[in-house]
């Protein structure tokens, strides 16, 4: 198993390079220009008010290193290469490819070099702060919400799924199926808005605050963590419900489907015939063998927790990664976009590795050793 893990970790490196290359390529080739966006960053600058000359854009582009070639090499035609020499223009030159090599003077190289040797993802165009600092400020909220939500989702959906499978076709199974399908069909922006309207509204139930994560007037940085936790809790209830309900629906259905299949197996019947208690059959034999699809879903926890949710964070005014990513995309903040893509890719790889290990733990028949 250990050698398998080491091999997988080594394989991370080329995969990550490909991920970073793709992320970088997609983000810089997307329509729109970060410099033009930056020079029109004022929310109050209309089209007519953009008194910005080409030279200004050029300077900014140079300052940000966006005037460099994208990659180590580029391919053009001989005609394009000799553009300046118009007298020598000949049609055949359009058919001769020319490769230009830029050594380390390209955007991708600078970006990769800074990550590997300086641990830096660059400076955000918008906030002018290191991207790592930006992510550090936002990440804890997204992680906290996601992990609590996943914990709740797994904690609630697994018993529901198992119970529904155990009593397949009975009232609980039918009722939970109906309810879960309904939940699954509801879009999260609608649920978020409804929760606000019903539970943060003095005209209905004013149980929770309507936005933010803490009270600006009373929150004290010096409080013990538990006090802070109690302070934050009511702010997080509605976002967590919004985060969780969809996952509960999906996981319960997956769990039920997996468990129903196991219940039909001969070895379950044998276990029952042997007189094993129903609880033991359910949790030791059925649950363990029905876990595979759940483990597959579990692999997505890490990347999903990292990126948060744009819609939920916007509606509840949460300072998480979702809003950060949304603003970065809106403003063509390449350093943030590429960093997020790359970390997301890395976490996806980690998730799949963890899932593979868990497969082996859950099912002894799965082995990664060569023998």
């Amino acid at each position: 198993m250990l050698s398998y893990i080491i091999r997988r970790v080594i394989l991370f490196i080329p995969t990550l390079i490909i991920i970073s290359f793709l992320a970088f390529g997609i983000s810089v080739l997307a329509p729109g220009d970060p410099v033009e966006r930056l020079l029109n960053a004022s929310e109050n600058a209309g089209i007519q008010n953009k008194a910005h000359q080409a030279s200004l854009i050029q300077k900014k582009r140079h300052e940000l290193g966006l005037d460099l070639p994208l990659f180590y090499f580029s391919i053009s035609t001989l005609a394009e290469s000799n553009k300046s020499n118009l007298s020598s223009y000949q049609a055949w030159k359009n058919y001769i490819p020319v490769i230009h090599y830029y050594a380390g003077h390209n955007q991708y190289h600078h970006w990769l070099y800074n990550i590997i040797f300086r641990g830096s993802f660059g400076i955000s165009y918008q906030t002018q702060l290191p991207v790592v600092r930006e992510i550090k400020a936002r990440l804890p909220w997204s992680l906290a919400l996601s992990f609590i939500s996943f914990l709740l989702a797994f904690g609630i959906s697994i018993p529901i799924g198992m119970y529904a499978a155990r009593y397949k076709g009975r009232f609980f199974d039918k009722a939970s199926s109906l309810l879960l399908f309904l939940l699954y069909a509801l879009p999260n922006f609608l649920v978020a808005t409804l929760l606000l309207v019903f539970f943060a509204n003095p005209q209905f139930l004013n149980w929770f605050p309507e936005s933010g994560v803490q009270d600006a007037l009373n929150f004290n940085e010096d409080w013990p963590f538990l006090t802070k936790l109690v302070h934050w809790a009511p702010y997080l209830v509605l976002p967590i419900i919004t985060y969780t309900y969809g996952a509960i629906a999906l996981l319960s259905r997956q769990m039920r489907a997996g468990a129903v299949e196991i219940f039909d197996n001969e070895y379950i019947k044998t276990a029952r015939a042997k007189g094993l208690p129903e609880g033991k059959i359910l949790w030791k034999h059925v649950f363990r063998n029905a876990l595979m699809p759940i483990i597959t879903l579990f692999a997505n926890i890490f990347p999903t927790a990292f990126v948060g949710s744009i819609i939920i964070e916007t509606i509840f005014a949460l300072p998480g990664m979702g809003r950060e990513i949304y603003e970065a995309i809106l403003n063509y903040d390449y350093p943030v976009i590429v960093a997020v893509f790359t970390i997301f890719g890395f976490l996806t790889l980690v998730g799949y590795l963890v899932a593979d290990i868990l497969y082996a733990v859950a099912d002894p028949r799965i082995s990664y050793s060569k023998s």
Partner: protein
Amino acid sequence: MKTRGHFSLLFFSFICLVIICFSGCKNIPSNDKSSILVTSWKSDAATLHPVCDPPNSARLLIFEYTQKTLTRTDLRTLQQIPLLVKGLAEVSADGKEFSYELRNDIKWDDGSPFTVDDVIFTMKVTKCPMTNDANVRSTYDKVKDIIKDPSNPLKFKMVAKEVYYLNKYIFNELYLVEKKHWDSAGVLDNISIPEMDLPQFDGNKYKGLAEWMKGFNDGANGHDVKKLCGLGAYAVTDWKTGTYITLTRKNNWWGENDTSAYSRAYPSQIVIKVIPDDQARYLAILNHSIDADVWLFTASYLKLKNNKDFTEHYYDGIRDQALFNLVYINTKQDGKERPKLFDDKNVRRAMAYLIPVDELNTTMVKGMGTRQASFIQPMFKKYYNDSLKLIPFDIEKAKELLTKAGWLDTDGDNIRDKMIDGKKVKFSFLFTYNGADPANKEYALVIKDAMYKAGVELIPDPVDLSLLQQKAGKHDFDMLIAGQSGSGSVPDDPEQGFDSKNWSNDGSNITGFGNAESDRIIELSNQAVDENKRADLLKKLQAIVYDEQPIIYLYGIKRKVVISKKYENPGMFTERPGVMLNNLKLKQK
């Protein structure tokens, strides 16, 4: 059964969690710290650097209370008033020199007096090509130099390169920074303002400049609250990214005894909550958890108006603001990629008749928009040409004009066509808009329906905002809808949008409007220091633009302001930020 035991355990855990949350709920205090005022803003500030990019509306709001300018627009009268100077500028006979005298009672937070050197330093650092402030630097292009008065250390004059009507407002938005705080070694002393304007300016020639600039431009200067200092009554004391920013009233502030409304600082703290969502903002007002707001959508505002609790606890009002919607027409389509549909002014006028502006006003902003016939909003009474009649929605009139221009439906497919350069061209075009704003789609669909009735095919073309700007700059569009904003105190310079040279150089004249006469009027109006003369010229220009119809003006968007009735002085204003939070005084119980 054990299964039930597990299930019960989980259920019990969940209930415990809910109880913890509710126990937390009880800890949520209402906004009972009475001298703390809470407002909301739709976005966080990207940076609070006093000079560097990028500016945004949240930063402007915060700078209202943490920074000061030499002069400003009085929100109540929309006239320019002095703040840190004894009076408005004395202008020289040639209109190029503006003399000021600083007040002698102004001090920085460290106790140092505010001097002319600070003004010069601020202008230098703003104009320096090495400063990361490309967004605002061009505003100060017309400043040639600032010269100290040798006989009076409080006096100086700003010398402009040319006569320009906005020169006298040049210090309205220049937030002063302290030379001693930023440049105690005097690195910028070795460089003059005119040197910074030279095309061959090379910062590396000046000893220590590049290094100093690196430090000045550092993003941390715009985020570390300890580094944020200004002449305003408040200082930023807490900034929770994406959540809220707290401003706290300074002790022993220089303006404590000043009686000006802009020097009052009644709230001990101003908390600016970041609330991007309109529904959450609406609920925050219903919950009384914010005291003042200017970002409500029209529908939410009208809903609140019908709420008894709201009317009991909040003042509210709607105010004009320098923000309106408009539809640009590309009058100079290339004839290749884009057929020349709009080169005839009859066609452009027909398009104006085909946009149901009143219906859009009713549907989109519940009739609260103010229609306008030209590029100057009616709230600028002195400058607005009220002889121009609003163009009504009139399909028959539009059909008549299109027929007159040679556009007929020759093949019976209900889309008009015309032979152009020997080719049959259908009257079908792209209507480009920012797809991120769902309201734009509504505009496109309503206008599409109306146009189809006159045999014109509009194809909605949603694009990203940045792409929209790119397309507009390169004249790569047929028709596009956008918003425009500006100053609420004085109409914007029409040169950017209407001078013909700004079309040929891919500038901001995106429609292709302009001729020798309109260019001359623009030049004269920009040089007209006399407001009446300028108003006459701008009215002439409006008439020409109206006749040519390169742009169809829809309506101005109102600002919806709410202020808690806990406060006195609930001023609501046209100009940004719409309220004077510093002037809201808690009523005596």
